[in-house]
């Protein structure tokens, strides 16, 4: 038997003290690795350039050793403070994280402070064990729900991905003639809350499917609805779901409808063939 208490997901929900809920997608360690590689390239470039300039300038004055010393100090400063400084100044982001749209937040969703930014980067040395293989960090992210490495656990932080999702808007249905099906359906025929959600999901995605696939998906609910409301068995289930969607979510029903190709029957389902079979 499986532990049934929690759905496995990379999205977590954070509720603020003001009782406002946010959903974040936690960045996986592999996305963070890419961001770290970008940062590592920048760090190496900065240290390389600074070291070469220092050695050249001090070399001109005959004190090359001083130049090497400056290069080593810059190496120390950049590798230890790069992450902390950037995450403090850029509100939880380094150039690498920004390029991959990742951000460090507290586990309650609020911004991190300078102490957390610096400390979580100092503790990277622990996560990188044994010998820079980062297996400790990987193990730690694997066993925590928010993919937290030890530095994150110590500071109460997490890294989230800032997905740019589209603003939710209602779908206009203009590729199928709805009125004939709408007229057949009694005025009071409306879907339940969960069914409305499922239909909304269907209408949102249906433009990516071919006619056969639409018929395949829509028939599950369409058949039951057709039975319940005595619709002809050959009714177009796709159009039926679109009608239910329009009745539930769209207030205006006077939108102009696209005229279908000649020869097609507006209320009949397209001839569907099974492109795949579902597991039993």
């Amino acid at each position, binding site marked *: 038997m499986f532990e049934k208490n929690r759905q*496995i997901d990379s999205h977590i929900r954070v509720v603020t003290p003001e009782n406002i809920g946010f959903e974040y997608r936690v960045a996986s*360690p592999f996305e963070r690795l890419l961001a770290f590689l970008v940062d590592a390239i920048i760090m190496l470039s900065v240290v390389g350039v600074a070291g070469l300039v220092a050695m050249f300038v001090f070399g001109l004055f005959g004190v090359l050793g001083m130049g090497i010393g400056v290069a080593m100090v810059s190496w120390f400063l950049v590798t230890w403070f790069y992450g902390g400084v950037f995450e403090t100044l850029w509100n939880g982001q380094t150039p690498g994280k920004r390029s991959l749209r990742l951000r460090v937040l507290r586990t309650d969703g609020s911004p991190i402070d300078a102490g957390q930014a610096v400390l979580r980067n100092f503790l990277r040395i622990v996560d990188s064990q044994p010998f820079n293989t980062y297996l400790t960090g990987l193990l730690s*992210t694997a066993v925590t729900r928010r993919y937290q490495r030890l530095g994150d656990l110590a500071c109460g932080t997490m890294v989230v991905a800032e997905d740019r999702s589209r603003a939710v808007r209602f779908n206009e249905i203009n590729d199928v003639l709805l009125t004939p099906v709408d007229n057949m359906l009694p005025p009071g025929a409306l879907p339940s809350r*969960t069914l409305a959600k499922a239909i909304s*999901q269907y209408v949102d995605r249906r433009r990516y499917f071919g006619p056969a696939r639409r018929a395949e998906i829509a028939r*599950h*609910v369409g058949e039951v609805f057709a039975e319940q409301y005595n619709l002809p068995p050959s009714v177009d289930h796709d159009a039926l779901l679109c009608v239910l969607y329009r009745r539930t979510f769209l207030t205006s029903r006077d939108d102009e409808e696209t005229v279908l190709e000649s020869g097609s029957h507006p209320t009949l389902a397209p001839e569907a063939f*099974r492109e*795949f079979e579902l597991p039993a």
Partner: protein
Amino acid sequence: MQLDQTRIAIRERRLGEILGLALQVTRAGAGWLVLLWLLGVTGFALFNGWLLRETLVDELLFEEVPVGYWVLMLILVAIEAPFATAPLSLYLGKMMFNSDFRFRAMLVELIRSMPQLVLYQGILRTLTMPFLLLPYWMMPYVGELILLERNPMFRGKQNRLTTNRRSRNLHSNNGGELFGRWLLAMATSIVLILAIGFGIEVLLMQLTSWEVSSTVQHLVIYPFALWLVVGWMAVVRFLSYLDLRIRREGWEVELAMRAEAQRLRGNIAPVI
């Protein structure tokens, strides 16, 4: 079984997210996954070691890195991996819907699928492997189709959809994306194998002061890391297969619709 109440949340994901989610799935099903991994992998790992031991010893006499040994090892693992990880895929299929997993039932399903696994994953894939590893990035989810969808090998009188046709339906027109994902997954696997192998080596040396010999390194430590990553990649592959079905076929929409149809028929209680 409520079709829209899945153990793993269904949504479209990028590969980076899938790789992370595979860690969570592995943790959630660790008990069975480790057991099935051991069962599937141990025999093949011992067989490979026995088969290639002489080659390794010979190569180490003249080379520091036994390239020939590793080429042969990787070819063997590539051929064996679908069979070694088949129990994991079957388990994950059950886990997805919180279904009861019974070892005996899994064995029966595995034996039933074996002719197709041997044909598609063993013979055909091995024969086409020399051609730029085509089957790995062109049809990466054939194993999942055989094990989880159980399409027949032949159409039969009922004119059923065959595995071959189903595979073409699922994989066609996605070549570029599948290739990109395959490359990224390969790169991640190589990095992980090296990191795990090197990490184990360092830990052994630091904790036990034991000088790891080249033979142990190549015969035990790195093959162990390789099989570990192969097992974990089976989880990644399963999640990627679901993702492809979601994006290409609207699988999550279909599950929601089927669950709602069940509710409308009064088979299951409504979700409030």
